[in-house]
């Protein structure tokens, strides 16, 4: 996730939040649902539009021009490229969740040092 950095993990540890691993899991679940919803909507809309326009064009009574169909299909592909980009991000989310937990665990061991450091700088 682009929204969480290691500084945020350190702040979460210092805040003494109970069961912070579960909170991290929740954040990732929200992010997962958000990405899934947006990518499904984008891919669904673009594919549906492309198919509808194409079928209409293939109909002998269609009044659509060839240029309109080509450009709409290109539009559909380009919008779906963004949807595919979001799907790839979704696929990486599992790895990011495991990495976030691993980093959280390692930094948690350094908590007394970090508190001492911050006491000296504030």
């Amino acid at each position, binding site marked *: *996730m*682009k*929204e*969480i*950095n*290691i*500084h945020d993990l*350190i702040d979460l540890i210092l805040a003494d939040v109970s069961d912070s691993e579960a909170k991290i899991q929740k954040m990732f679940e929200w992010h997962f649902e958000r990405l899934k919803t947006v990518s499904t909507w984008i891919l669904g809309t673009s594919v549906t539009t492309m198919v509808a326009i194409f079928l209409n064009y293939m109909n002998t009574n269609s009044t*659509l*021009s060839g*240029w*309109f169909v080509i*450009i*709409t299909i*290109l*539009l*559909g*592909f*380009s*919008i779906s*490229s*963004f949807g595919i*980009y979001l799907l790839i991000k979704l696929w*990486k989310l599992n*790895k*990011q969740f495991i*990495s*976030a937990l691993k*980093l959280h665990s*390692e*930094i948690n*061991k*350094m*908590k*007394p*040092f*970090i*508190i*001492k*450091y*911050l006491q*000296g*700088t504030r």
Partner: protein
Amino acid sequence: MTKELFNSLTIVSGIIGIMSIIVTVFSILNNYRLQNKKLDIVKAKKHADILSSNDIKTVGNYLYEDIGKVTIDDYVSNPKIKNIVDSYLNKLGRFLDKGDLNIDPIENVVISNDMEIPLSQDSKVLLLQLESGESWNVLATLRNIIEIKLRNIAKKQGLYIEVEKSASLLLRALYNYKFISSFAYKNLAYAIMVCNKAIHGENINLEEAKEAIFLTERVFKELDSN
């Protein structure tokens, strides 16, 4: 629908399509640019130099400010950033490790009545810094001084010790091989234990820290006279 409306829709669709591609490509390139910027920040400083500074601000700043800027996405998608972060966390973890030395100062430490011994210049500087509140820096420096001394003894005795081994492991090895006396082992073990606790982040009172410095000075004088 009229032909004009179809044409207008076609043009608008084309524009939206082009914008969508531009946004996707821009997003990918911007992410790549930001990642490279963070990579430059985290690899600008050498980890060995940071940890050997014996300065809590230097060690902490690099973790909190520089490494802190790395996002989880950067960590997963950029192997170079991942290696640098893992390397520093690994080294820092070992540096901050409390170790397993557990010497009771009342029962095991040999403290004689002549604790007020002539101090070296290094020790005097450390005591001054201690008085000004820099206990972490002082005890990190003291542990480093002890480690250097022990490595020199090991080298003179022909004992090879890996660079990664801690001061406490070095001390134990030298004692097991009977290169140092029981007196030296117990006093230095106590000093290292105090240093390790302070570096880990625990509170160490002024008397404990001074005791560690005095004991180290005493042992070094004995080792130098042998």
